[in-house]
């Protein structure tokens, strides 16, 4: 009985898990908006490959990375950038596709749906919203083409094959 009053040794200690903070980069709404912006600003009518989306989205994470990417783009991607893949982008894409903001074409490329376009226009109308992203993306613009992406992928096959 005495033991029961000794809370330190009791076996009934319950920890309430406190909610954890989530970085803005991993918010569904933020990521979807970011991807939509990339599709709107950096892609033409033919859609955008998944690799390009990953490349830009991950680079947007830090100022240095995106500056580097902008520089490489201006040089025509002669120096091949390291492409990182973020599962969060895939998850956000899934949500966006199911929500009907982004459409996946038959060739696998992605593009904005009419709903997605209205969403992006809504964002752009509010001038102080996502200023940083807009600024960087407009510098890249459509500088990264699908043929460049193709070239990068072929290079991977030749360069990084360890046999």
């Amino acid at each position, binding site marked *: 009985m005495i033991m029961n009053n000794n809370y330190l040794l009791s076996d009934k200690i319950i920890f309430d898990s406190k909610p*954890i903070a*989530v970085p803005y980069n991993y*918010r*569904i*709404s*933020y990521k979807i908006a970011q991807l939509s912006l990339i599709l709107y600003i950096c892609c033409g009518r033919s859609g955008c490959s998944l690799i390009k989306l990953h490349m830009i989205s991950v680079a947007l994470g830090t100022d240095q990375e995106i500056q580097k990417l902008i520089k490489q783009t201006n040089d025509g991607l002669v120096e091949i950038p390291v492409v990182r893949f973020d*599962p969060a982008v895939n998850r956000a894409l899934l949500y966006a596709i199911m*929500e*009907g903001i982004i459409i996946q074409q038959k060739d696998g490329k992605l593009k904005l749906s009419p709903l997605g376009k209205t969403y992006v226009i809504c964002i752009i109308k509010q001038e102080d919203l996502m200023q940083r992203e807009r600024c960087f993306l407009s510098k890249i613009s459509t500088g990264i083409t699908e043929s460049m992406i193709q070239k990068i992928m072929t290079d991977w096959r030749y360069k990084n094959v360890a046999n």
Partner: protein
Amino acid sequence: MLRINRIKIEITTENGIYGFDTPFVNGLNFLSSQENTCGKSSILEAIYYCLGLEEIIGGRNEKVLTSVFKTTLEDNTSVWNVLQSCAYLEISNGKDVVTLYRTAKMTNRDSRMITVYYSDMDGLSNPDTLADDKYVHFPNSAINPKGFHYFLEKFLFLELPQVIGSDNTQKKLYLQLVFSCMFIEQKHGWSDLFSGMPILGIKESKKRVIEFVLQLDTLKNEKKKEDLKINEALIIEEWNKCFDSLQIMAAQENCTIINYPVRPNVLSDIDVERIAIQNDGVLIKKEIENLEKQTSEIQKLKPKVIDNFEELQGELSKTEESMTELDGYVSSCQKQLLIEKGNIKTINENLETIEIDLTNNKDAARLRDLGSELQCNFAKDVCPVCHQHINDSLLPKAADIPVMGIDENIRHLEAQQKMLKFSLLSHIQRKKELEMQINEINDRLYKLRRLAQTIRNDLYSINESYSETVVYKKITLKQRIDGLKKLQMLLIKNCKELKILSGRWQIFLEDRKQVPKNKFTALDKEKLDLLKEKFIDNLKLFGYRSIHDFDAITISEESYLPLFEGFDMKFDSSASDNIRLIWSFTLALLQVSVLTSGNHPTVLIFDEPDQQSTIISDMKSFFEKILDLADYSQVIVGITIKDGDTKKAIQELPENSYLQIDVPNKAFKKK
């Protein structure tokens, strides 16, 4: 006070000059005629007009005057065009007499100009008479020396207060407003109390006028409170300055101040004496004594090196010891300083990151709102496929761990930012302290090194030479003593200043106590009570019948206007009683102002007070009341004596107690 001595009106027509000229006396003046439309009102209007107060009639400049001044004049059956019209008004302030001249219609002369002749009307023809042109209804004519109302204010010895305008700026109370409670005009003056008051953009103008006329202290009080506030701030500032100057000086000498009252206080002599300066826990006075003792001891030393070689040896080792100690201390301080600098850098970086995070999170919140405007499911934390609840997170395995919502996240970040800012402040403070400490130690080290050097020089010098150490020590001791003495002088000086400030603080506290907590001072209350008493007396005298319970009448503390059971009295008054109310209040204001030496110019004008077929006996009481006040006032009453009753009422008044000016069928006669 203002007295209207004489008015002269001249109207030039095609048929020659028509005019009217009459003197007025102190006390009661009747301006009477047998018929209506004889020109009484034209004459009274001319008085307003000459005083630049025509706004009480309802407009500016000559347009408010009757047609006789502007267009046509009737003479029996013929009608003549008016070519030119003007009026002279002789007024007095009890001491000086001036004559005012203003034209209504005259080519080449602005009707806004009033000429002031510094003489009575008969003296106008004298070429020596000084004349001065003044203006009315110009911007700032109330405060510009060229403005007529500025002149009139000075002439009447009034000091109009600054009041708050409807645009919240300070404005001078206008004379037009003040006189609107003395000049009751015929057409709309009888509809309500002060109904002739023009609207000139002053907040609560009726209230301000009554405050001014009765010279209530409320306005003064507000000003006084403002002054006190300024005074308080001033004393506090000087108090702090006193402390700061002492503090700086004390810090230079490595001393601390004790028992210093940080906030202004009333200090006793003991309090002042308790203020002292310490050096390492020793009072500065003691320290000076000690140092002086040391000096005299050094003087006893023989200045030759050979004489105190042993001592020099000992002292050198002692000095070197304390130098090593201090060196160690400095290096530890510098280590800490480095750590602090690193901390500050890290915190600043963290703060930057948090700021970026915050803006991005806020963006995310707005994006979510945008999404919910577009009816997107993810914005409501609902899965677009299965419509189950999802966490707003793209991190893997977030399902079983609760996740902060965006808004919560923003609050979380803001709290973090606050915490970091706080910690940054404390680090900066610590850095400052460390830097000061290092400086101080370096200073001491420098002195010790110098001392060590001189000792060494002494030790290696020829035995017969003079000891540098002794000289150096003497000099440093002397400097220290000088510094401390200066500090002490400053302390004494500041203590004296503090004593003076404390005296001022005491006066300030007393003053503050004297400012009444309530809006009204006792004197104000007395005045308002007197106003109520006189007002009710007058009402009873003039036969006010609409209310039987006179005790329920109060003077509002908000507007100073009479209330009955908390409501404006006019609602309870019949039409004729409303007239009695105006008589009573207008006279009561005059009575109270006279009894309590207020600012009333002690002149009243009633144009046709017999409105609404007032009973003639009440009318008579009204005249009798005016006669009561005749010694210290001037009242001009314009009245039509159509029926025998009115005539009787006037005739029954004691003879020679009033002046009756008969206006003939048509006032303006050909000269």
